[in-house]
């Protein structure tokens, strides 16, 4: 396929927008699950960078793709732990609104 003619900037802009959406989600959401979504979006933005750079470098190498593979695997592990925590929190507190959890105060 004759793709890859777009300048790198286009990919970078997509990645930047995704990153910004992730940050937006973390700032505004209180639901722990949604915050987890936001984090996953940020990770995906980074992965897009890795793969794009890997293709666009003057001396292309696969390190970027390898990195993306690792990052996907790690993100899955992270999501598993995060979901387990969310389930636990919900079971004990009946609540996953992070701001409503405010037992801990000075």
């Amino acid at each position, binding site marked *: 396929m004759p*793709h*890859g*003619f*777009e*300048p*790198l*900037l*286009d*990919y*970078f*802009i*997509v990645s*930047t927008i*995704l*990153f*910004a*959406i*992730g*940050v*937006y989600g973390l*700032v*505004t959401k*209180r*639901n722990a*699950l949604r915050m*987890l*979504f936001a984090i*996953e*979006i940020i990770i*995906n933005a980074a*992965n*897009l960078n890795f*793969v*794009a750079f*890997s*293709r*666009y*470098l*003057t001396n*292309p190498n*696969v*390190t970027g*793709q*390898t990195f*993306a593979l690792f990052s*996907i*695997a*790690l*993100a*899955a*592990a992270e*999501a*598993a732990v995060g979901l*387990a925590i*969310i*389930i*636990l929190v*919900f079971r004990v507190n*009946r609540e996953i*609104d992070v701001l409503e959890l405010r037992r801990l105060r000075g």
Partner: protein
Amino acid sequence: MVDIVFLALAAVSIGASVIALEAREIVYGAVALGVSFLGLAGFFIILDAPFVALFQITVYVGAVVVLILFTVMLIRREKGVKTPAAWERGVGIVAAAVLAIGMGSVAFASGLQTWVAPQGVQVSFREIGVQLLTQYWPILLILGLVLASAVMGALTLAKVEREEK
């Protein structure tokens, strides 16, 4: 000349991400997240990284999203969660816009628009396997440990203790 496939993929992944965060029902949000991940996989394909794309689909869409869906089913409750006030959303949007514009201009200042993919020097994705097994095998090992600890930890946390029943 902007490629139509590129545009479509961008629209899908960005749009789906927004829906993932904003959908009223969190189940739809989870599905939208999966769609966004699929869009990313599309990008990987046009970037000549089919192996990563495959991995993205199997792990992210096949495992993570399914896991998220299960959790959503288990919890199924967003009524108690207050929706953010208008000003909070405003702050979030402004922050995101500032960030996106800032980072975009940084990229522009760095001259990424002139950075075009070199033709004819594609690397084969087979090299990934070679790299993994020769150069990066210790990292694979560590990754295995991470996964082991994550599974162990997640199971311990999610498990219902006998006396809790």
